């Protein structure tokens, strides 16, 4: 343990014995944060499940007004971005700086693609008055479903996808900082913890969407197979 103090190792903070211990501490710290995120989103999922159990018909009717094709496309975009993120971590481990930067940039581009599709969906909901509040107007005559219950679905929809989109924006910001750090040559095969733990964050945000997609978009798919 002592030898690591005598020889200077780039990227090793003085309060750690060695790189292994430092990396482990960083990973655990990130997971501690992600667990708070699990509880945070868990509360929202809980609210969703309770209201869905209470108003199954209205929730299915409301869900059928979301475009599941756009939702599925965004799911694929996020899964692809998780692959590029995993490859960025791989190239940070092997010390290939050009490919590390390339895959980080690709991850950012995919993150923006997701947000653009999300913006298109939000705009559609704005135009059709599906945003909860004083201007909420759901065309009930063509649908089963109580207006108030449908509005509750959209409250939950906007809360969950909004908070998720905020996480995407933060993730894109983190990736931008990583690109900047990588360009300055801050990462080596020995030290690349920022890439690794930022990857954990990115994958977590992907997982949240993996659950959001079927729960929000596919409820009414067997009613409206469009």
């Amino acid at each position: 343990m002592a030898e690591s103090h005598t020889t200077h190792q780039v990227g090793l903070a003085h309060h750690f014995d060695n790189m292994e211990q430092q990396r482990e501490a960083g990973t655990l710290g990130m997971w501690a944060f992600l667990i708070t995120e699990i509880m945070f989103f868990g509360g929202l999922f809980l609210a969703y499940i309770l209201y869905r159990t209470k108003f199954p018909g209205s929730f299915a009717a409301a869900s059928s007004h979301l475009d599941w094709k756009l939702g599925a496309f965004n799911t694929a975009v996020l899964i692809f971005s998780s692959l590029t993120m995993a490859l960025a971590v791989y190239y940070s481990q092997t010390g290939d700086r050009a490919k590390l930067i390339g895959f980080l940039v690709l991850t950012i581009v995919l993150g923006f693609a997701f947000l653009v599709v999300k913006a298109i969906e939000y705009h559609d909901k704005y135009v059709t008055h599906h945003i909860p509040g004083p201007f909420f107007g759901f065309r009930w005559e063509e649908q089963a479903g109580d207006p108030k219950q449908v509005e509750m679905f959209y409250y939950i929809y906007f809360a969950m996808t909004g908070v998720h989109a905020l996480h995407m924006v933060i993730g894109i910001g983190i990736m931008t900082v990583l690109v900047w750090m990588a360009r300055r040559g801050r990462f080596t095969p020995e030290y690349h913890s920022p890439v690794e733990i930022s990857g954990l964050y990115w994958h977590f945000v992907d997982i949240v969407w993996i659950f959001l997609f079927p729960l929000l978009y596919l409820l009414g798919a067997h009613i409206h197979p469009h």
Partner: protein
Amino acid sequence: MSEHVVSRKIYFIIFGALLVLTAATVWVATFDLGAWNAVVALSIAVLKGTLVVLYFMHVRYSSKLTWVFVAAGFFWLAILLAFTFSDYATRGWVGIAK
């Protein structure tokens, strides 16, 4: 002592599996299975999430301490869900509070 480098091949396999499972969840949703729609959708989502956690997030190759951390997080979520549902599911059993 150095960290485990996951091969690119594994990443591509997981990526393919996630896309196939996404297609599966869309396909299954077109059938009216009643209450089973939710069960199937959540099962596929849990499977996809597990693949991401184990391989993309490297938990499969991580230390036992990391395993305990991650498992504790999901266990706490399970407590949140289980206790709330047991409350809501049994409220009608006694005629006290509605």
